[in-house]
């Protein structure tokens, strides 16, 4: 039995194709991109977590000074 042609296994090939189009390809990142992640909450959350602790503290203190 020969390898099925792409037309015969259309649905499966489509899933694989779409997967490549949205998961592969050149990635352009950084702040020039308007909305790169499905769930921006996750992206922002990750960046928040990765920011050094002292920066966070500093920002919080500054905010307190300003609002007091």
């Amino acid at each position, binding site marked *: 039995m*020969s*390898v099925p042609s*792409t037309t015969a296994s259309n649905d499966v090939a489509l899933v694989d*194709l*779409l997967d490549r189009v949205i998961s592969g*390809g050149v990635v*352009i990142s950084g702040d020039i*991109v*308007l909305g790169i992640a499905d769930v921006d909450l996750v992206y922002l959350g990750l960046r928040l977590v990765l920011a050094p602790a002292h920066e966070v503290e500093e920002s919080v203190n500054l905010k307190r000074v300003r609002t007091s």
Partner: protein
Amino acid sequence: MLLYAVIRAEAESPALVGVCGGGLETHRDAEVALVAEACDRPPENSRPMALRYYEIVDQLSRSVSALPIRFPTTVGGRDDVIRELARRAPQWRRRLDELDGLAEMVLRASWPGAAATPESGHPSGSAYLRHRAALVHTAEQTAGQLERRARLVCRDVRRLSATQGVRLACLLPRTAELELRRVLNEWQQDEVGREVTLGGPWPPFSFVDVQETAYR
């Protein structure tokens, strides 16, 4: 601006209509250029839209050497585009030369019992874990066999995320498709019960980076 692909600066992109209904424009830097469309708002992040996007990128790839861009990538405007071009030009130029005339096909393997359907009844914990382990072993073995065969024809082979089954991406000239099918047909005959389906050829989305990452 919706971005479609990276091409050589001196290349002429065919006049194509984009997903937002506008014409594709070429923004050139010294060595490379970006093909983009000025959309009023970012395109809908849906399957039909992604498919339309793919068709346009595919048409583009058939006329010029192009690095397809992940969908959807929307940037602010021309200045952003030019800045990104300047930043990545040397690596992009190099990769464009390396991928010139090459396309991608995705191999998807299956074998009896590959679809790990939840077991009816109540297997013991041990039985369950051993069954899962057996699946992983067979998957690994199958992927290894397929890769070895594919490399007879493909310039490069990359394994795709294992969570969606045994899938491999193959980089090859479009003219080599028949040869690949022949080689895989032989594998199916040698390994009775194991089957492979092929997707593509389409632009080399899985091969735009030089480094092979662990997960794609």
